[in-house]
């Protein structure tokens, strides 16, 4: 094996976590003085990074954040940096629960803006790619009414694109249909058109051509377990590229 391939394989094994502890420590020492080795390691990290992004999403509890923040040196909050960095979804509940991080410790303590932005996105959760996406169209009216994104971990995000009128005593119910023999299966209720996280339980991994729809049902949801009201929006799922 030629020396450059040898070095690259070494970097790759290190990134895979296969270097013995002493060898790993040696590689880390060498990286400080050998820019080529440091570069190869970074390239391998980028190559394998997608496998981190598809890990199950596990929300850290409040207690964990409190333990972490308690140990880091506090810095004075600065209003100038209190805005969420680019790419961060400021609406996330997790983000707001860790408001401390935004304005204070990280933003002022970190030299690198890129790192702050990356940290924001990591704290929130790696943004996984949905398994399927469906654009729900209105029956009669023109234009899309909502977007459904279904993720591999079973979570489903519904994002309305228009305000949907919900009469008194009624509720919106979201359904999916992947097999005519099984019929439509309820995913959840919405009191109003707002971004919602739903879950599929005991259902197969969503696939292309699966139907998602929103119907208008009596308060509390359809009494029969099947859609009874009018279909407001409906769409077929596709796999994103």
């Amino acid at each position, binding site marked *: *094996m030629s020396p450059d*391939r040898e070095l*690259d*394989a070494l970097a*790759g*094994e290190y*990134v*895979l*976590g*296969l270097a013995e*502890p002493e060898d*790993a420590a040696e590689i880390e020492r060498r990286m400080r003085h050998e820019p080529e080795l*440091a*570069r190869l390691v*970074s*390239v391998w*990290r*980028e*190559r*394998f*990074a*997608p*496998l*981190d992004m*598809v*890990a*199950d*999403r*596990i*929300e*850290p*509890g409040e207690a*964990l954040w409190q*333990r*972490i923040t308690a*140990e*880091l040196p506090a810095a004075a909050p600065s209003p100038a940096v209190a805005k969420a960095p680019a790419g961060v979804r400021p609406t996330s509940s997790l983000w707001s629960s860790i408001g401390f991080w935004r304005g204070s*410790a*990280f933003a002022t*303590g*970190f*030299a*690198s803006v*890129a*790192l702050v*932005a*990356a*940290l924001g*996105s*990591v*704290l929130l959760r*790696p943004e*996984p*790619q949905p*398994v399927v996406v469906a654009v729900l169209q209105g029956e009669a009216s023109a234009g899309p009414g909502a977007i459904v994104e279904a993720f*591999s971990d079973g979570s489903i995000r519904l994002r309305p694109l228009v305000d949907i009128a919900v009469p008194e005593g009624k509720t919106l119910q979201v359904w999916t249909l992947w097999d005519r023999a099984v019929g439509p299966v309820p995913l959840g209720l919405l009191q109003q058109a707002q971004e919602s996280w739903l879950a599929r339980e005991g259902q197969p991994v969503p696939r292309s051509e699966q139907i998602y729809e929103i119907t208008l049902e009596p308060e509390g949801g359809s009494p029969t377990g099947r859609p009874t009201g009018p279909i407001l929006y409906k769409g077929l799922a596709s*796999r*994103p*590229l």
Partner: protein
Amino acid sequence: MLGVAMRIVRRRDLAEEVVHDAFVQIWRKADQFDPALGSGRSWMFAIVRNRALNLIRDRSREELTDDATLEGLAEIGDHDDLIQRLGQSEALRVCLERLERPRRASLVLAYAGGFSHGEIAGRLGVPLGTVKAWIRRSLLSLRECMA
């Protein structure tokens, strides 16, 4: 981040410990991060994975989990599932799928599961030398394929 740690340490309390230690380390080492070399995200995940690996090396893995979970996770099928979660046009997925199944599994067992050469050899029922050779050759194939 917790999900990445969980794949390696298998226990929620230990995964939280890993994420906690990783954050303290990220905080301390922030000045060493060089944006010219790659994304902050992959740098931080590398720290999480390193902490998780250190933790399982310090304890025997048997102590960390019940055998059923360990065996379940060691199935090659589960690693195919992980690959399936990658976008279909993702270069990593395309290139991993070009490798023979056990070779592909070796890489994913190492990266995502934190398994050592010896553990992978045991799980796949092949000699240690074979796993070492598979990994090296597969890395070089990936390098070509993802270039």
